[in-house]
Protein backbone atom coordinates (compact mmCIF):
# COMPACT_ATOMS: atom_id res chain seq x y z
CA UNK A 1 0.00 0.00 0.00
CA UNK A 2 1.32 3.41 -0.97
CA UNK A 3 1.30 5.47 2.22
CA UNK A 4 1.48 8.81 0.46
CA UNK A 5 -1.52 7.91 -1.65
CA UNK A 6 -3.31 6.57 1.41
CA UNK A 7 -2.81 9.87 3.18
CA UNK A 8 -4.38 11.73 0.30
CA UNK A 9 -7.25 9.27 -0.21
CA UNK A 10 -8.11 9.35 3.50
CA UNK A 11 -9.15 12.94 3.13
CA UNK A 12 -12.29 11.64 1.52
CA UNK A 13 -14.23 10.47 4.52
CA UNK A 14 -17.42 8.46 4.25
CA UNK A 15 -20.62 10.11 5.35
CA UNK A 16 -21.70 8.37 8.55
CA UNK A 17 -24.86 6.28 8.46
CA UNK A 18 -27.86 6.98 10.59
CA UNK A 19 -28.41 4.72 13.58
CA UNK A 20 -32.02 4.19 12.61
CA UNK A 21 -30.90 2.47 9.38
CA UNK A 22 -28.90 -0.05 11.40
CA UNK A 23 -31.84 -0.58 13.71
CA UNK A 24 -34.12 -1.01 10.73
CA UNK A 25 -31.78 -3.61 9.28
CA UNK A 26 -31.70 -5.48 12.58
CA UNK A 27 -35.47 -5.31 12.79
CA UNK A 28 -35.93 -6.66 9.26
CA UNK A 29 -33.36 -9.37 9.91
CA UNK A 30 -35.21 -10.54 13.00
CA UNK A 31 -38.51 -10.53 11.11
CA UNK A 32 -36.85 -12.35 8.30
CA UNK A 33 -38.00 -15.82 9.00
CA UNK A 34 -35.46 -18.37 7.96
CA UNK A 35 -37.93 -21.02 6.93
CA UNK A 36 -35.68 -23.87 7.81
CA UNK A 37 -38.64 -25.91 8.97
CA UNK A 38 -39.99 -25.81 5.42
CA UNK A 39 -36.71 -27.11 4.07
CA UNK A 40 -36.81 -30.11 6.36
CA UNK A 41 -38.28 -33.39 5.33
CA UNK A 42 -41.17 -35.11 7.04
CA UNK A 43 -40.78 -38.38 8.93
CA UNK A 44 -41.54 -40.62 5.95
CA UNK A 45 -39.08 -38.86 3.68
CA UNK A 46 -36.54 -38.88 6.47
CA UNK A 47 -36.94 -42.65 6.86
CA UNK A 48 -36.56 -43.29 3.15
CA UNK A 49 -33.77 -40.74 2.88
CA UNK A 50 -31.65 -42.69 5.36
CA UNK A 51 -31.39 -45.43 2.75
CA UNK A 52 -29.60 -42.93 0.55
CA UNK A 53 -27.04 -42.23 3.25
CA UNK A 54 -26.22 -45.88 3.74
CA UNK A 55 -23.31 -46.47 1.43
CA UNK A 56 -23.66 -48.70 -1.65
CA UNK A 57 -21.07 -51.22 -0.51
CA UNK A 58 -23.22 -52.03 2.54
CA UNK A 59 -26.08 -53.00 0.26
CA UNK A 60 -23.71 -54.97 -1.93
CA UNK A 61 -22.37 -56.89 1.08
CA UNK A 62 -25.87 -57.66 2.30
CA UNK A 63 -27.03 -58.77 -1.10
CA UNK A 64 -23.83 -60.76 -1.50
CA UNK A 65 -24.40 -62.54 1.81
CA UNK A 66 -28.00 -63.26 0.88
CA UNK A 67 -26.96 -64.60 -2.54
CA UNK A 68 -24.27 -66.73 -0.93
CA UNK A 69 -26.83 -68.28 1.38
CA UNK A 70 -29.24 -68.70 -1.50
CA UNK A 71 -26.60 -70.50 -3.55
CA UNK A 72 -25.22 -72.65 -0.76
CA UNK A 73 -28.37 -73.74 1.03
CA UNK A 74 -29.99 -75.67 -1.83
CA UNK A 75 -26.82 -77.65 -2.50
CA UNK A 76 -25.83 -77.91 1.17
CA UNK A 77 -27.05 -81.43 1.40
CA UNK A 78 -23.78 -82.51 -0.19
CA UNK A 79 -21.97 -81.58 3.00
CA UNK A 80 -22.36 -83.04 6.40
CA UNK A 81 -25.35 -81.34 7.98
CA UNK A 82 -23.43 -79.87 10.90
CA UNK A 83 -21.01 -77.95 8.63
CA UNK A 84 -23.91 -76.57 6.69
CA UNK A 85 -25.38 -75.26 9.90
CA UNK A 86 -21.97 -73.96 10.91
CA UNK A 87 -21.90 -71.95 7.72
CA UNK A 88 -25.34 -70.59 8.51
CA UNK A 89 -24.23 -69.66 12.04
CA UNK A 90 -21.15 -67.87 10.73
CA UNK A 91 -22.97 -65.99 8.00
CA UNK A 92 -25.52 -64.32 10.26
CA UNK A 93 -22.99 -62.41 12.46
CA UNK A 94 -21.47 -61.18 9.22
CA UNK A 95 -24.81 -59.66 8.33
CA UNK A 96 -24.74 -57.82 11.64
CA UNK A 97 -21.14 -56.68 11.27
CA UNK A 98 -21.98 -55.02 7.97
CA UNK A 99 -24.50 -52.82 9.80
CA UNK A 100 -22.17 -51.77 12.58
CA UNK A 101 -20.06 -49.30 10.65
CA UNK A 102 -23.09 -47.29 9.59
CA UNK A 103 -24.26 -47.08 13.17
CA UNK A 104 -20.80 -46.20 14.46
CA UNK A 105 -20.65 -43.10 12.25
CA UNK A 106 -23.51 -41.65 14.26
CA UNK A 107 -21.65 -42.24 17.49
CA UNK A 108 -18.24 -40.76 16.79
CA UNK A 109 -17.07 -38.25 19.40
CA UNK A 110 -18.07 -34.74 18.40
CA UNK A 111 -21.13 -35.74 16.41
CA UNK A 112 -23.30 -34.01 18.95
CA UNK A 113 -22.43 -30.61 17.50
CA UNK A 114 -23.85 -31.65 14.14
CA UNK A 115 -27.20 -32.18 15.79
CA UNK A 116 -27.57 -28.42 15.79
CA UNK A 117 -28.11 -28.51 12.05
CA UNK A 118 -30.76 -31.19 12.05
CA UNK A 119 -34.41 -31.37 12.94
CA UNK A 120 -34.05 -35.09 13.38
CA UNK A 121 -31.56 -35.91 16.08
CA UNK A 122 -28.75 -38.40 15.71
CA UNK A 123 -30.72 -40.66 18.01
CA UNK A 124 -33.51 -40.73 15.46
CA UNK A 125 -31.01 -41.36 12.67
CA UNK A 126 -29.59 -44.33 14.61
CA UNK A 127 -33.06 -45.72 15.32
CA UNK A 128 -34.12 -45.44 11.70
CA UNK A 129 -30.95 -47.11 10.47
CA UNK A 130 -31.37 -49.93 12.96
CA UNK A 131 -34.97 -50.44 11.89
CA UNK A 132 -33.90 -50.44 8.23
CA UNK A 133 -31.15 -52.95 8.84
CA UNK A 134 -33.43 -55.07 11.00
CA UNK A 135 -36.10 -55.22 8.30
CA UNK A 136 -33.62 -56.09 5.59
CA UNK A 137 -31.88 -58.73 7.65
CA UNK A 138 -35.25 -60.19 8.60
CA UNK A 139 -36.08 -60.50 4.92
CA UNK A 140 -32.75 -62.22 4.30
CA UNK A 141 -33.39 -64.71 7.10
CA UNK A 142 -36.94 -65.43 5.98
CA UNK A 143 -35.91 -65.92 2.38
CA UNK A 144 -33.06 -68.18 3.49
CA UNK A 145 -35.42 -70.16 5.70
CA UNK A 146 -37.85 -70.62 2.83
CA UNK A 147 -35.02 -71.64 0.51
CA UNK A 148 -33.70 -74.11 3.05
CA UNK A 149 -37.12 -75.58 3.53
CA UNK A 150 -37.75 -75.79 -0.20
CA UNK A 151 -34.40 -77.41 -0.87
CA UNK A 152 -35.15 -80.11 1.67
CA UNK A 153 -31.84 -79.76 3.47
CA UNK A 154 -33.38 -78.72 6.73
CA UNK A 155 -36.32 -77.16 8.40
CA UNK A 156 -36.97 -73.45 8.32
CA UNK A 157 -36.99 -73.28 12.11
CA UNK A 158 -33.48 -74.75 12.17
CA UNK A 159 -32.15 -72.10 9.89
CA UNK A 160 -33.84 -69.39 11.89
CA UNK A 161 -32.52 -70.77 15.18
CA UNK A 162 -28.96 -71.42 14.01
CA UNK A 163 -28.66 -68.05 12.33
CA UNK A 164 -30.60 -65.81 14.70
CA UNK A 165 -28.75 -66.86 17.85
CA UNK A 166 -25.31 -65.95 16.46
CA UNK A 167 -26.82 -62.83 14.92
CA UNK A 168 -28.20 -61.72 18.28
CA UNK A 169 -24.91 -62.59 19.92
CA UNK A 170 -23.13 -60.41 17.40
CA UNK A 171 -25.62 -57.58 17.95
CA UNK A 172 -25.11 -57.81 21.70
CA UNK A 173 -21.34 -57.63 21.39
CA UNK A 174 -21.38 -54.80 18.85
CA UNK A 175 -23.80 -52.67 20.84
CA UNK A 176 -21.67 -53.13 23.94
CA UNK A 177 -18.55 -52.18 22.00
CA UNK A 178 -20.12 -49.13 20.36
CA UNK A 179 -21.28 -47.85 23.74
CA UNK A 180 -17.86 -48.14 25.29
CA UNK A 181 -15.45 -47.62 22.41
CA UNK A 182 -14.16 -44.05 21.95
CA UNK A 183 -11.58 -44.66 19.27
CA UNK A 184 -12.11 -44.84 15.54
CA UNK A 185 -11.30 -48.55 15.40
CA UNK A 186 -14.60 -49.68 16.85
CA UNK A 187 -15.13 -51.67 13.68
CA UNK A 188 -11.96 -53.64 14.37
CA UNK A 189 -13.20 -54.47 17.86
CA UNK A 190 -16.54 -55.60 16.44
CA UNK A 191 -14.77 -57.74 13.87
CA UNK A 192 -12.70 -59.25 16.65
CA UNK A 193 -15.86 -60.05 18.58
CA UNK A 194 -17.23 -61.67 15.43
CA UNK A 195 -14.17 -63.87 15.15
CA UNK A 196 -14.52 -64.94 18.78
CA UNK A 197 -18.17 -65.73 18.21
CA UNK A 198 -17.30 -67.79 15.15
CA UNK A 199 -14.74 -69.75 17.15
CA UNK A 200 -17.39 -70.37 19.80
CA UNK A 201 -19.42 -72.26 17.18
CA UNK A 202 -16.62 -73.82 15.18
CA UNK A 203 -14.41 -75.17 17.95
CA UNK A 204 -16.93 -77.53 19.53
CA UNK A 205 -17.69 -78.77 16.01
CA UNK A 206 -14.10 -79.49 15.30
CA UNK A 207 -13.70 -81.62 18.43
CA UNK A 208 -16.77 -83.65 17.55
CA UNK A 209 -19.44 -82.07 19.72
CA UNK A 210 -22.76 -82.18 17.89
CA UNK A 211 -23.71 -78.55 18.32
CA UNK A 212 -26.52 -78.80 15.79
CA UNK A 213 -28.10 -82.00 17.04
CA UNK A 214 -31.66 -82.12 18.34
CA UNK A 215 -30.35 -82.57 21.87
CA UNK A 216 -28.70 -79.17 21.68
CA UNK A 217 -31.84 -77.31 20.66
CA UNK A 218 -32.67 -76.37 24.23
CA UNK A 219 -29.15 -74.96 24.67
CA UNK A 220 -29.63 -72.92 21.53
CA UNK A 221 -32.95 -71.63 22.81
CA UNK A 222 -31.45 -70.62 26.15
CA UNK A 223 -28.51 -68.93 24.42
CA UNK A 224 -30.93 -67.23 22.06
CA UNK A 225 -33.09 -65.91 24.89
CA UNK A 226 -30.03 -64.63 26.73
CA UNK A 227 -28.66 -63.03 23.57
CA UNK A 228 -32.04 -61.44 22.86
CA UNK A 229 -32.34 -60.02 26.36
CA UNK A 230 -28.77 -58.74 26.29
CA UNK A 231 -29.23 -57.24 22.84
CA UNK A 232 -32.38 -55.40 23.84
CA UNK A 233 -30.67 -54.05 26.96
CA UNK A 234 -27.51 -52.91 25.19
CA UNK A 235 -29.44 -51.52 22.24
CA UNK A 236 -31.49 -49.36 24.57
CA UNK A 237 -28.30 -48.14 26.20
CA UNK A 238 -26.78 -47.48 22.79
CA UNK A 239 -29.78 -45.51 21.56
CA UNK A 240 -29.83 -43.50 24.77
CA UNK A 241 -26.21 -42.51 24.32
CA UNK A 242 -26.16 -42.08 20.57
CA UNK A 243 -25.30 -38.69 19.17
CA UNK A 244 -21.63 -38.48 20.02
CA UNK A 245 -21.98 -39.23 23.72
CA UNK A 246 -23.80 -36.50 25.57
CA UNK A 247 -21.30 -36.85 28.37
CA UNK A 248 -18.30 -36.37 26.16
CA UNK A 249 -17.18 -33.37 28.14
CA UNK A 250 -17.10 -35.52 31.23
CA UNK A 251 -15.30 -38.34 29.55
CA UNK A 252 -12.74 -36.01 28.10
CA UNK A 253 -13.34 -36.61 24.43
CA UNK A 254 -14.72 -33.14 23.73
CA UNK A 255 -12.37 -31.02 21.59
Amino acid at each position, binding site marked *: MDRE*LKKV*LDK*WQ*AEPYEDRS*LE*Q*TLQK*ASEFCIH*HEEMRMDATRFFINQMRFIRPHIWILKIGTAILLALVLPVGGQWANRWLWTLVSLASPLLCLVNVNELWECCCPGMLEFQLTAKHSLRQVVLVRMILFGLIDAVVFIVSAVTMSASGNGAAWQLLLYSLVPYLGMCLGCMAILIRCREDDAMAWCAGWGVMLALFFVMPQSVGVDVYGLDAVSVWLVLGAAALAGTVWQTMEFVKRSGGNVDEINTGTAV
Partner: protein
Amino acid sequence: MFENRVTDRIIYDREYMDRLIRENYEEIYKYCWRHVRQRETAEDLTQEVFLRFLGNIDRYREYGRLRNYLYVTAGNLIRDYYRKKKELPMKDAARESVRSQGEPDYEKKEKGWAGSHEESAEIEQTLERIRIQTALDGLSAEERDLVILRYYQGLKIRDIAAVTGAPASTVRYRLKKAEDRLKRELCGGEANWTEN
Protein backbone atom coordinates in the same frame (compact mmCIF):
# COMPACT_ATOMS: atom_id res chain seq x y z
CA MET B 1 -13.07 -25.10 9.08
CA PHE B 2 -15.82 -24.02 11.42
CA GLU B 3 -17.37 -21.47 9.04
CA ASN B 4 -20.53 -23.54 8.59
CA ARG B 5 -21.11 -23.21 12.28
CA VAL B 6 -21.77 -19.51 11.52
CA THR B 7 -24.86 -20.43 9.56
CA ASP B 8 -25.94 -22.87 12.24
CA ARG B 9 -25.63 -20.20 14.88
CA ILE B 10 -27.45 -17.63 12.77
CA ILE B 11 -30.33 -20.03 12.27
CA TYR B 12 -30.62 -20.88 15.94
CA ASP B 13 -29.18 -17.85 17.75
CA ARG B 14 -30.81 -14.48 17.06
CA GLU B 15 -28.41 -12.63 19.32
CA TYR B 16 -25.51 -13.97 17.33
CA MET B 17 -27.17 -12.80 14.13
CA ASP B 18 -27.64 -9.31 15.58
CA ARG B 19 -24.03 -9.19 16.67
CA LEU B 20 -22.87 -10.32 13.26
CA ILE B 21 -24.83 -7.54 11.57
CA ARG B 22 -23.60 -4.89 13.99
CA GLU B 23 -19.99 -5.94 13.54
CA ASN B 24 -20.12 -5.83 9.75
CA TYR B 25 -22.65 -3.08 9.09
CA GLU B 26 -20.27 -0.12 9.11
CA GLU B 27 -17.72 -1.65 6.76
CA ILE B 28 -20.32 -2.81 4.27
CA TYR B 29 -22.05 0.58 4.46
CA LYS B 30 -18.79 2.42 3.79
CA TYR B 31 -18.07 0.13 0.87
CA CYS B 32 -21.50 0.82 -0.62
CA TRP B 33 -21.23 4.53 0.11
CA ARG B 34 -17.90 4.86 -1.66
CA HIS B 35 -19.50 3.43 -4.77
CA VAL B 36 -22.86 5.17 -4.78
CA ARG B 37 -21.87 8.28 -2.74
CA GLN B 38 -25.34 8.79 -1.38
CA ARG B 39 -26.16 7.99 2.21
CA GLU B 40 -29.74 6.81 1.76
CA THR B 41 -28.88 4.61 -1.20
CA ALA B 42 -25.88 3.16 0.63
CA GLU B 43 -28.05 2.40 3.66
CA ASP B 44 -30.64 0.67 1.46
CA LEU B 45 -27.97 -1.37 -0.28
CA THR B 46 -26.35 -2.33 3.01
CA GLN B 47 -29.67 -3.52 4.37
CA GLU B 48 -30.24 -5.51 1.20
CA VAL B 49 -26.80 -7.13 1.56
CA PHE B 50 -27.67 -8.56 4.96
CA LEU B 51 -31.19 -9.57 3.98
CA ARG B 52 -29.88 -11.30 0.89
CA PHE B 53 -27.29 -13.10 2.99
CA LEU B 54 -29.98 -14.34 5.35
CA GLY B 55 -32.22 -15.30 2.47
CA ASN B 56 -29.51 -17.43 0.89
CA ILE B 57 -28.01 -18.75 4.06
CA ASP B 58 -28.76 -22.33 3.14
CA ARG B 59 -26.49 -21.90 0.15
CA TYR B 60 -23.65 -20.32 2.10
CA ARG B 61 -20.55 -22.48 2.22
CA GLU B 62 -17.06 -21.88 3.37
CA TYR B 63 -15.92 -18.99 1.20
CA GLY B 64 -13.25 -17.81 3.59
CA ARG B 65 -14.13 -14.89 5.79
CA LEU B 66 -17.77 -14.05 6.13
CA ARG B 67 -17.08 -10.37 5.48
CA ASN B 68 -15.57 -11.24 2.08
CA TYR B 69 -18.80 -12.99 1.21
CA LEU B 70 -20.71 -9.87 2.23
CA TYR B 71 -18.45 -7.74 0.02
CA VAL B 72 -19.20 -10.00 -2.92
CA THR B 73 -22.94 -9.62 -2.29
CA ALA B 74 -22.54 -5.86 -1.93
CA GLY B 75 -20.59 -5.66 -5.18
CA ASN B 76 -23.34 -7.54 -7.01
CA LEU B 77 -26.00 -5.25 -5.57
CA ILE B 78 -24.05 -2.15 -6.53
CA ARG B 79 -23.74 -3.42 -10.09
CA ASP B 80 -27.48 -4.11 -10.17
CA TYR B 81 -28.11 -0.63 -8.84
CA TYR B 82 -26.13 0.96 -11.64
CA ARG B 83 -27.75 -1.20 -14.25
CA LYS B 84 -31.14 0.11 -13.19
CA LYS B 85 -30.01 3.70 -12.82
CA LYS B 86 -28.32 5.65 -15.58
CA GLU B 87 -25.02 6.82 -14.22
CA LEU B 88 -24.75 10.62 -13.94
CA PRO B 89 -21.95 12.28 -15.90
CA MET B 90 -18.75 12.60 -13.90
CA LYS B 91 -19.03 16.33 -13.21
CA ASP B 92 -22.65 16.05 -12.17
CA ALA B 93 -21.89 13.07 -9.98
CA ALA B 94 -19.21 15.02 -8.17
CA ARG B 95 -21.60 17.92 -7.65
CA GLU B 96 -24.33 15.52 -6.57
CA SER B 97 -22.17 13.96 -3.92
CA VAL B 98 -21.02 17.35 -2.70
CA ARG B 99 -24.66 18.45 -2.48
CA SER B 100 -25.55 15.38 -0.41
CA GLN B 101 -22.64 16.06 1.93
CA GLY B 102 -23.41 19.75 2.36
CA GLU B 103 -22.48 22.43 -0.09
CA PRO B 104 -20.40 25.43 0.89
CA ASP B 105 -22.13 28.74 0.50
CA TYR B 106 -20.81 29.76 -2.90
CA GLU B 107 -23.23 32.67 -3.09
CA LYS B 108 -21.61 34.47 -0.20
CA LYS B 109 -18.24 33.97 -1.79
CA GLU B 110 -19.48 35.39 -5.06
CA LYS B 111 -20.77 38.48 -3.26
CA GLY B 112 -17.26 39.04 -2.12
CA TRP B 113 -17.91 38.13 1.43
CA ALA B 114 -14.64 36.79 2.77
CA GLY B 115 -16.31 34.38 5.19
CA SER B 116 -14.78 32.90 8.24
CA HIS B 117 -11.65 30.81 8.39
CA GLU B 118 -13.75 27.71 9.06
CA GLU B 119 -15.77 28.20 5.93
CA SER B 120 -12.60 28.50 3.88
CA ALA B 121 -11.37 25.27 5.37
CA GLU B 122 -14.70 23.66 4.55
CA ILE B 123 -14.50 24.82 0.97
CA GLU B 124 -11.01 23.43 0.70
CA GLN B 125 -12.09 20.10 2.09
CA THR B 126 -14.97 19.96 -0.36
CA LEU B 127 -12.70 20.75 -3.25
CA GLU B 128 -10.28 18.10 -2.09
CA ARG B 129 -13.15 15.59 -1.96
CA ILE B 130 -14.18 16.47 -5.48
CA ARG B 131 -10.60 16.09 -6.63
CA ILE B 132 -10.32 12.63 -5.11
CA GLN B 133 -13.68 11.54 -6.45
CA THR B 134 -12.85 12.81 -9.91
CA ALA B 135 -9.56 10.93 -9.83
CA LEU B 136 -11.35 7.75 -8.77
CA ASP B 137 -13.97 8.20 -11.44
CA GLY B 138 -11.17 8.32 -13.98
CA LEU B 139 -10.33 4.71 -13.17
CA SER B 140 -12.14 1.75 -14.66
CA ALA B 141 -14.86 0.18 -12.51
CA GLU B 142 -12.61 -2.79 -11.60
CA GLU B 143 -9.67 -0.57 -10.66
CA ARG B 144 -11.89 1.71 -8.60
CA ASP B 145 -13.26 -1.29 -6.75
CA LEU B 146 -9.74 -2.53 -6.03
CA VAL B 147 -8.66 0.85 -4.68
CA ILE B 148 -11.73 1.06 -2.45
CA LEU B 149 -11.20 -2.44 -1.11
CA ARG B 150 -7.49 -1.90 -0.52
CA TYR B 151 -7.27 1.69 0.67
CA TYR B 152 -10.62 2.27 2.28
CA GLN B 153 -11.73 -1.17 3.43
CA GLY B 154 -8.20 -2.28 4.35
CA LEU B 155 -8.41 -5.69 2.73
CA LYS B 156 -5.31 -7.74 2.02
CA ILE B 157 -4.50 -8.78 -1.54
CA ARG B 158 -5.63 -12.38 -0.99
CA ASP B 159 -8.95 -11.20 0.42
CA ILE B 160 -9.44 -8.85 -2.52
CA ALA B 161 -8.68 -11.77 -4.83
CA ALA B 162 -11.34 -13.83 -3.02
CA VAL B 163 -13.88 -11.02 -3.29
CA THR B 164 -13.25 -10.12 -6.92
CA GLY B 165 -12.67 -13.67 -8.09
CA ALA B 166 -9.43 -12.68 -9.80
CA PRO B 167 -6.03 -14.24 -9.11
CA ALA B 168 -3.84 -12.40 -6.60
CA SER B 169 -1.26 -11.57 -9.28
CA THR B 170 -3.93 -9.92 -11.42
CA VAL B 171 -5.14 -7.96 -8.43
CA ARG B 172 -1.61 -6.73 -7.71
CA TYR B 173 -1.07 -5.71 -11.32
CA ARG B 174 -4.35 -3.83 -11.65
CA LEU B 175 -3.93 -2.21 -8.27
CA LYS B 176 -0.44 -1.02 -9.18
CA LYS B 177 -1.78 0.48 -12.39
CA ALA B 178 -4.55 2.26 -10.50
CA GLU B 179 -2.14 3.48 -7.82
CA ASP B 180 0.23 4.94 -10.43
CA ARG B 181 -2.59 6.76 -12.13
CA LEU B 182 -3.99 8.12 -8.87
CA LYS B 183 -0.58 9.24 -7.71
CA ARG B 184 -0.03 11.14 -10.94
CA GLU B 185 -3.36 12.87 -10.53
CA LEU B 186 -3.45 13.41 -6.79
CA CYS B 187 0.08 13.54 -5.49
CA GLY B 188 1.83 15.02 -8.50
CA GLY B 189 -1.15 16.94 -9.79
CA GLU B 190 -1.72 19.56 -7.12
CA ALA B 191 -0.02 22.27 -9.06
CA ASN B 192 -2.28 21.69 -12.03
CA TRP B 193 -5.51 21.96 -10.05
CA THR B 194 -7.75 24.85 -10.92
CA GLU B 195 -11.09 25.81 -9.48
CA ASN B 196 -12.75 25.83 -12.88
